[in-house]
């Protein structure tokens, strides 16, 4: 069966519905209520070890374990959890991480030994490569942040135990990510994981007196509190690199993107924006700050993953608010602690369209990355040109689909592979959520945004606007046309859109 993007979704994937379009249409009959719990009479929630808490939760073979990625590449909790699960003799669990980072390559042995039997969550790095080599029997289900929320409150993917690292907790489980010895900032994704899991274990290296000051995750959701020696490596500051343009192509793309955003009328006084992570994210952040200073444009808010660059904008008054679902560096963590205009938001507040309204719906413009984009503007952020998963999808499709204007920034080619292709390896963000592509060789506007095209040409006639097919041909003249990859039958990954429909599947590459 083909979905409306023309991607083949095999019938063998029963229970999956093909993608129907950008507008999310939840079936309200599907919702499940968060689990009811009996917290009275009060029990002692503090447990000495992970192994002990695993016994108390009754975790068994085949159950689902959720974790969050706020410790990013510094995380040391996941390995401790898996080792404890293994030592308890529990096998074949479904791991549901909100994200995996390069450091999580250490989970591979737990897949090999059968502790982990299945993964439903966001993956990257060597784990992505390992899965793409066909090492799991069932395909990994990759959900955007919104799709994950949807899977939780429709009961599509119930979580048996959520193990949530927190930087500090009190004995009742009131916790946050900004106190304690090893703060990591916003608990955005952790907060929502706590609401729907059957049991919630907070894991920390700092237990503070009750009640904790500044509560991000309330005790009402927490079943157990475990103290461990270490949750992760300390968060680092972004290196200072004044006056250095390390990436001239990135700089050019950023300049084009800002001129384009202005010409299209989305970068103006009081606008709101979000910038995806990655190297081009840093370039656009720098360039945007310069423009804001030069033209005295201040923003109303910045949302998403918050960095030191955004904190600088807040401090200097170039934005009124930071809405932080994930803190990316030490500056962001410190700012979240001391600045009232830097607010932590949960994943639901951030990007749950099945509510009375979420933050991403209020965004004027978002800048996002891509590894590949096709001539229908369908975007691949996960896999590299070799067909192996390299990056997490995060909230790419959620933000692109909700913001008023979504702009993809990418170099025209990387390692002689054109970013624009007739067909991408995997669609993670559908073309009807994407408004434009900016490369160093030109800017392509999605034909569905004809009004924008007219406006841009009128306001900044010198911008290199070019139809996407034409740009692709121009680039491929330079790079050559790549031989398409060949794939086996085996499906290794499935990508779900915000409403749980299937965007695409990935098969194992023939080597």
């Amino acid at each position: 069966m083909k979905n409306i993007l023309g991607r083949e979704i095999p019938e063998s994937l029963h229970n999956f519905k093909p993608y129907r379009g950008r507008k999310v249409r939840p079936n309200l009959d599907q919702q499940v209520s968060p689990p009811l719990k009996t917290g009275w009479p009060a029990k002692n929630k503090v447990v000495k070890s992970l192994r002990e808490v695993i016994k108390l939760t009754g975790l068994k073979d085949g159950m689902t374990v959720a974790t969050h990625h706020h410790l990013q590449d510094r995380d040391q909790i996941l390995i401790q959890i898996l080792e404890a699960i293994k030592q308890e003799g529990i096998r074949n669990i479904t791991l549901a991480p909100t994200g995996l980072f390069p450091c999580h390559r250490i989970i591979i042995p737990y897949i090999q030994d059968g502790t982990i039997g299945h993964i439903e969550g966001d993956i990257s790095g060597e784990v992505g490569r390992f899965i793409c080599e066909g090492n799991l029997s069932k395909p990994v289900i990759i959900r955007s942040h919104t799709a994950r929320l949807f899977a939780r409150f429709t009961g599509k993917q119930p979580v048996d135990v959520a193990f949530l690292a927190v930087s500090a907790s009190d004995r009742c489980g009131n916790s946050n990510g900004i106190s304690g010895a090893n703060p990591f900032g916003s608990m955005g994704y952790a907060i929502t994981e706590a609401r729907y899991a059957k049991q919630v274990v907070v894991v920390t290296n700092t237990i503070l007196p009750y009640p904790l000051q500044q509560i991000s995750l309330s005790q009402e959701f927490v079943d157990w509190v475990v103290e461990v020696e270490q949750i992760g490596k300390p968060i680092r500051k972004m290196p200072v690199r004044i006056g250095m343009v390390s990436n001239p192509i990135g700089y050019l793309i950023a300049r084009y993107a800002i001129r384009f955003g202005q010409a299209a009328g989305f970068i103006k006084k009081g606008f709101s924006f979000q910038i995806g992570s990655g190297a081009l994210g840093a370039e656009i952040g720098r360039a945007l700050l310069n423009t804001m200073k030069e033209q005295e444009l201040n923003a109303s808010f910045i949302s998403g993953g918050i960095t030191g660059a955004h904190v600088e904008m807040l401090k200097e008054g170039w934005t009124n608010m930071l809405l932080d679902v994930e803190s990316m560096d030490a500056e962001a963590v410190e700012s979240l602690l001391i600045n009232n205009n830097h607010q932590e938001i949960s994943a639901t507040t951030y990007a749950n369209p099945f509510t009375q309204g979420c933050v991403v719906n209020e965004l004027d413009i978002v800048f996002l990355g891509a590894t590949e984009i096709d001539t229908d503007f369908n975007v691949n952020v996960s896999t590299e040109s070799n067909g192996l998963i390299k990056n997490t999808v995060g909230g790419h499709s959620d933000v692109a689909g909700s913001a008023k204007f979504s702009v993809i920034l990418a170099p025209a080619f990387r390692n002689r592979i054109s970013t624009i292709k007739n067909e991408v390896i995997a669609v993670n963000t559908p073309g009807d959520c994407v408004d434009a592509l900016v490369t160093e060789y030109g800017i392509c506007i999605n034909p569905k945004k004809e009004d924008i095209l007219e406006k841009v040409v009128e306001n900044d006639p010198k911008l290199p606007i070019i139809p996407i097919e034409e740009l692709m041909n121009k680039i491929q003249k330079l790079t050559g046309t790549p031989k398409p990859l060949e794939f086996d039958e085996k499906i290794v990954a499935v990508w779900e859109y915000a409403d749980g429909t299937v965007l695409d599947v990935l098969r194992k590459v023939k080597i």
Partner: protein
Amino acid sequence: MNPWGFTERELKNEEDLEKLKVFLSSFDLVYEDSVDYTILILDNENEIIAAGSLFRNILKGLAVNQDYQGDQLIDYLVSHLISVAKEKGYYHYFIFTSPQMAESFKYLGFNEIARAEQMAVLLEYGNQNIENYYSIMKEKTSADYSLEGAGIVVNCNPFTNGHRYLIEYASQREKRVHVFVLEEDLSTFPFETRLMLVREGTKDLGNVFVHPGGSYIISSAIFPAYFLKTEDAKTLAQAKLDVKIFANYVMRIFNLSARYVGEEPYCMVTSCYNKAMMEELLPLGKKLIIIPRKQISGEVISASHVRKALRENDFTKIASLVPETTLKFLKSAEAKYIIEKLKNKESRH
């Protein structure tokens, strides 16, 4: 000048060296004195953000500060070191690194040869690779490979009755014996001479095949401590790498089931090496056979005794330690400069 505008210079002084040692330690890397060249990349505050060293064709001590890993400095450093090595005439390169760092070099086209878990990894790059190297060597040697044989690695500096005894012992008990002569020229007797003396001295043994060891068997690439004459913890890691390479490539390709070695009660480095061999070979189902050293007048025969006697011009003693073939060579005009060289230096090997 690099594309980032960072300061880039060679290691200059003690202060640099101290900084470099601290820098490398966070990547599980140890600075080794045996390097010909070290390049540092420094930030605005003169702190090391990246470094790399070169010893002949071996890249080592390569690391980049985490904050700068997105900048592809490692690609730049590897390219730079390769170009320095190339100027010296090397076209085949090794990287000796920690397991933590090894992955980043695979993306640059280096292939892992062997790994001592949690200690060290050796990778190689270039037109030659270890698999081809020994496969071609095997093809060139007409032996009956269907029967399992045995291997011996020798330095033979020079070839003595002790070496002869070990090889003969193996040749009487095994269907086929392959002798690999260490190729690296860090010994008093040049490689070509050592190889020739082993060949001459074993000519009468029909099932013995003598080969050059190549750059993969106890060479300074894999086993610098052996040549550095140090006896620290590094030695074991290096010894394990070397043994793994011998077992996984040489023994597999040549269909060898046993390795014969002479007992080494005195030399710390060599006895450490034999210990590593024991630990690595047995789990692979390969035998390690340690033969007591041949003695004469209550003293083991050792190449170092031959060298000592050469320094003292004691040819009577030498005649009792080496076979006729070696003695003939040592008395020849060709050997004169080697003996001169020997008299001018004191060294274990």
